[in-house]
């Protein structure tokens, strides 16, 4: 899908001949460079999980949060340029606050999502400004309307979801999310699954240390968005790490098959043994690289 938009990509107020606004697409690429954030809606709430990469050991633990509180009942997880995301969280807070002031009750999530999406969209119309380089996921729980989940991307589009992922490993995360039966799960069960997914999609090789940010909003918190309490978090992280070890063990058997695949330029025909095709001509280094490739995620 990627192509260079030479000449038509200098400002957001220009269409390319094939009908694309390249500045907006470049903004979405900025989101794809960021680490993953996911959110899943279940029977009685919404759980957020963010893979927060720790770029330096000197950072204080818990700094540079990527999950925000918008009013009491709404949570927002972000991916992309963090400064842009922070500014949008302020916009969302102003909208929610002004709604409460005018109408006397919590802002419905769809309406908040529409309003912030409209704001993001406005920045894709003019050459004097650049689009926001972040996507974000909004979630809330209301006793009458139940749990709700919306995602907004840099083009200013907003959709409702049962589960969604943004950031570099969003494809892998989506695959994992699709395996879940979220409509029948409760928040407590879902927290563990969310932690597990973040651990799965985390690339051990390219990105070393990370902090797992988890939060939820649902019946269990009485409709307030909060960070996960310590005991629940520990249980979730333990479950995630344990599941990963189990998968590692089963992966060992699969690895040998994968190695032989990589060493061939074409797949072996059925029944043909790998050794007949000159499998040992490749250098040992090639083998090592391909092992790593399969262990990580793209």
């Amino acid at each position, binding site marked *: 899908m990627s192509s260079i938009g030479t000449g038509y990509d200098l400002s957001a107020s220009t269409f390319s001949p094939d009908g694309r606004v390249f500045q907006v697409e470049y903004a979405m690429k900025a989101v794809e460079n960021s680490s993953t954030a996911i959110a899943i809606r279940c029977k009685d709430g919404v759980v957020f999980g963010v893979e927060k990469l720790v770029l330096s050991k000197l950072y204080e633990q818990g700094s540079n949060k990527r999950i925000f509180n918008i009013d009491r009942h709404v949570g927002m997880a972000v991916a992309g340029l963090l400064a842009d995301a922070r500014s949008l969280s302020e916009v969302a807070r102003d909208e929610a606050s002004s709604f409460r*002031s005018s*109408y*006397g*009750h919590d802002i419905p999530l769809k*309406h908040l999502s*529409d309003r912030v999406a409209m704001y993001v969209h406005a920045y894709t119309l003019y050459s004097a400004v650049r689009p926001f380089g972040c996507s974000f996921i909004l979630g809330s729980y209301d006793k*009458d309307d139940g749990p709700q989940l919306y995602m907004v991307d840099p083009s200013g589009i907003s959709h409702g979801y049962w589960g969604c992922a943004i950031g570099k490993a969003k494809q892998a995360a989506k695959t994992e999310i699709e395996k879940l039966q979220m409509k029948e799960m409760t928040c407590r069960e879902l927290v563990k699954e969310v932690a597990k997914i973040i651990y799965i999609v985390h690339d051990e090789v390219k990105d070393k240390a990370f902090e797992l940010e988890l939060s939820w909003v649902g019946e269990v918190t009485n409709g307030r968005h909060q960070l996960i309490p310590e005991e629940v978090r520990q249980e979730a992280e333990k479950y995630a790490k344990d599941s990963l070890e189990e998968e590692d063990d089963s992966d060992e058997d699969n690895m040998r098959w994968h190695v032989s695949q990589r060493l061939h330029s074409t797949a072996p025909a059925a029944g043909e043994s790998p050794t007949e095709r000159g499998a040992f001509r490749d250098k040992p280094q090639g083998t090592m690289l391909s092992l790593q490739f399969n262990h990580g995620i793209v």
Partner: protein
Amino acid sequence: MLQETGTEWLSQEVKTGTTIIAVEFDGGVVLGSDSRVSAGASVVNRVMNKLSPLHDKIYCALSGSAADAQTIAEVVHYQLDVHSIEIDEDPQVRSAATLVRNISYKYKEELSAHLIVAGWDRRDGGQVFATLSGLLTRQPFAVGGSGSSHVYGFVDAEFRGGMSKEECQQFVVNTLSLAINRDGSSGGVAYIVSIDEHGTEEKVVLGNDLPTFFDQ
């Protein structure tokens, strides 16, 4: 006796010296009002409907200055219209009451009107809100206007929780009748509006059909 040239009423403020009432029952609300509009000692309209719709299932009852009350109701009607389209569902009664309160409070020095907001929504069922002087409070029932002071004793004694819709309608009609009887600024006919999950019903009770009491 007072010497009147007869033209003072042209320059006096038009007030809905009034009796208004709204009562909540399980599943909806009943609103009631009289129909007299006075300018000083003159009745300038004897059939005004002081129950004004803000939305399909939210009404407000007007009292105080006729112009101020009507204008607030019209502005809030417009705001609720836009709001319900934006949120893509019927507005909450609390939203309507908050909008009325925001205007009443912001312009409390300039305006002289008290609106009672009552209606039905799917979250909290029937609700009655008083917005006198820019406050906002939910109550089981509310009375307002110049006639209300004559009937506080009656409503305090006779109101009970758990009334049915028909009992509420009777309660409202009795209250209006007693107030009209005693308050010079209230009179005419009684307008009754009943709102519940199934819809809104407007009724008029003509003067001679109002319930009578010991002195009538």
